[in-house]
């Protein structure tokens, strides 16, 4: 098997303000910390065009600029950032908490779930019907099944473009479609996207339906900004649409969720399963703000640290260390 075992003290799932702040606190506390995130800058904050209520930020800045500074701080304190989508977990083994990324299994003694609430709330017509017939969500999982074929990537954020880049090495052609008028990826990704000849970006297209015949995908139907419809052909449609639903499906019921699938925690961010914590928008709560998510990340990390030390509180917590 190609999967590898990567062990750490604390595994954080999610690279938004909650996950990255948790990583800063954990790494500063000396915990071996790994963060899994689908893109270097992900989540709601990375999409925010201007953030004016982040403490100390007098003039509004793009959210990704603020998040980039937080990410730099994570790296400065020695946490490892792994670019991958977490697809599942196994918290029932006595060999640690297992977190499954694209092609590897991480094993941690504590986990913080900070995956946010940007899952699509509804499926696109045809998406469920053609699941298994060419609808896909993960290039590491299903990309090789489309070797040499024409595929479509539906999405507008950095994760979608990273996946498109990976697909370009497998598929015959990749068409990236987005309803936005321009890509929402950083300059590095945009530069890389210019390289492959087999990648085409189509902006201003809103997906209406995934179409197929006999249970097999043949393409996707779109509407442009003028209301005109067109169909792009492809054997596979990789979906990276964003919405406002919590990203908790990968937990497979490992922790208790509320009636809307948000994770239930106590005030120390502890979930129903000891050693597993949650922070940020994925939590069941009322207020969803970026600075609140960051604060919850800090609480979750300190709680995880306490859990890992059997309840013992470190004397140097909160003090600067160089």
């Amino acid at each position, binding site marked *: 098997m190609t999967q590898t075992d990567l062990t750490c003290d604390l595994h954080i799932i999610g690279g938004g303000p909650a996950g990255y702040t948790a990583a800063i606190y954990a790494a500063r506390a000396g915990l071996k910390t790994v963060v899994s995130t689908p893109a270097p800058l992900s989540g709601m904050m990375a999409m925010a065009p201007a953030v004016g209520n982040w403490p100390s930020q007098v003039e509004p800045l793009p959210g990704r600029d603020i998040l980039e500074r937080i990410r730099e701080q994570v790296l400065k304190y020695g946490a490892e950032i792994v670019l991958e989508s977490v697809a599942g977990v196994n918290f*029932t083994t006595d060999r640690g908490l297992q977190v*499954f990324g694209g092609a590897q299994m991480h094993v941690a003694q504590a986990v913080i779930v900070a995956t946010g609430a940007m899952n699509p709330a509804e499926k696109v017509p045809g998406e469920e019907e053609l*699941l298994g017939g060419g609808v896909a969500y993960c290039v590491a999982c299903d990309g090789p099944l489309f070797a040499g074929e024409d595929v479509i990537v539906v999405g507008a954020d950095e994760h979608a473009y990273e996946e498109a880049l990976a697909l370009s090495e497998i598929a015959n052609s990749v068409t990236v479609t987005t309803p936005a008028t321009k890509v929402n990826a950083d300059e590095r990704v945009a530069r890389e996207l210019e390289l492959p000849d087999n990648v085409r970006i189509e902006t201003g297209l809103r997906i209406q339906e995934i179409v197929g015949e006999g249970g097999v995908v043949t393409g996707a139907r779109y509407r442009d900004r003028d209301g005109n419809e067109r169909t792009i052909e492809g054997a596979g449609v990789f979906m990276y649409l964003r919405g406002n639903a919590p990203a908790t499906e990968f937990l497979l019921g490992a922790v208790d969720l509320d009636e809307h699938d948000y994770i239930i925690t106590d005030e120390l961010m502890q979930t129903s399963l000891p050693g597993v914590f949650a922070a940020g928008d994925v939590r069941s709560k009322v207020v969803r703000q970026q600075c609140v998510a960051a604060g919850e990340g800090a609480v979750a990390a300190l709680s995880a640290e306490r859990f890992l030390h059997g309840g013992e509180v470190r004397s140097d917590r909160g003090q600067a260390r160089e």
Partner: protein
Amino acid sequence: MAKPIDVTGEDFEEEVIKCTDLPVLVDFWSETCGHCLALNPQYDQAAEAKEGEVKFAKVSFQDCRDLFSEHGVRATPTLVLFKDGKEIARRVGAMRADDLQEWLNEHLSE
């Protein structure tokens, strides 16, 4: 304790298609698929619970791509349920062991 068996192109016919003693559930999976890895412990658990009722098998994409093409598998993990050599149900994605058992019960009682 019943463990899923690994099946390849060489013994798929014998282990799955020609198996008439029990229905056979096949997990078409990939080593690079996190959803598949997440399903593994749930699949093992379900195999244990359904011992004597359903035979559990696994086909790896890395070992036998041809079987994926032959059976029209375009996503991983895809679970295909065979009875008397014929496909009677199919489902895509990771799921909990109890949901998997429920799904099997539903299709095997038809």
